């Protein structure tokens, strides 16, 4: 039994989903496709971090648009690369972050924490709705 199926059955056992929802999720897992729902979408791994900016330019001109898509895999690889930072330099970075009011310890970012962090990004959506610019940051 796959891990995903087991999770679905656990959710069914816990009463978080009903039998019909469980059936649709299992059908989606086995490639049924048509039964895929929003619940199935929440179990899909995140692939990209998106940043979309739509800013007003000078009057009479078209707006400035920025569309950035960064693969999550790149974030993971970048964080793994941070493990190569020498301890002394890491302390300096941590100190600088603390001075800026960011209590982050780079030494605490380990692969298992990283996956949890990326999983938490699923619920992250930043929407800035300004009269002159619209900014949207989200994961998909």
């Amino acid at each position, binding site marked *: 039994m796959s891990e995903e199926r087991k999770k679905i059955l656990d959710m069914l056992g816990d009463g978080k989903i009903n039998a019909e929802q469980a059936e649709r999720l299992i059908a989606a897992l086995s490639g049924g496709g048509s039964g895929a729902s929003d619940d199935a979408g929440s179990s899909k791994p995140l692939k990209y971090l998106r940043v979309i900016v739509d800013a007003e*330019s000078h009057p009479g001109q078209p707006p400035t648009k920025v569309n950035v898509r960064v693969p999550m895999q790149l974030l993971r690889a970048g964080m793994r690369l941070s493990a*190569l930072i020498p301890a002394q330099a890491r302390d300096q970075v941590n100190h600088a972050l603390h001075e800026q009011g960011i209590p982050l310890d780079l030494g605490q970012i380990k692969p298992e924490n990283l996956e949890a962090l990326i999983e938490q990004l699923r619920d992250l959506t930043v929407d800035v709705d300004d009269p002159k610019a619209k900014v949207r940051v989200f994961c998909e």
Partner: protein
Amino acid sequence: MIPMLAEIRIGVARRRRLHLWLPLFLVWILLAALLVLLSPLILIGLVALSVCCLIRRHNPIVLIRIVGSAIVRFGGVLAALTGVHIQIQSPGADVVVRVL
């Protein structure tokens, strides 16, 4: 999967548009060939490095492991570039960078 192609489009107002397709897979092939050609030199370098470390009473395996880890992680970053998409459209310029 490692990036195979990169597309760069740069359009500046009132000027000709630049559109480049970069075949990155050729770079990887060239790099692989270069690595094979240089492998004897790399081996000699590793032996020399190990001797230097032993003279200075350092463990050469630790150093080689650190260097190997750094190379693997940089490779991981390069491989993870697949899927990057950056598009900037403004009245003065239009820039698109895509890694496929």
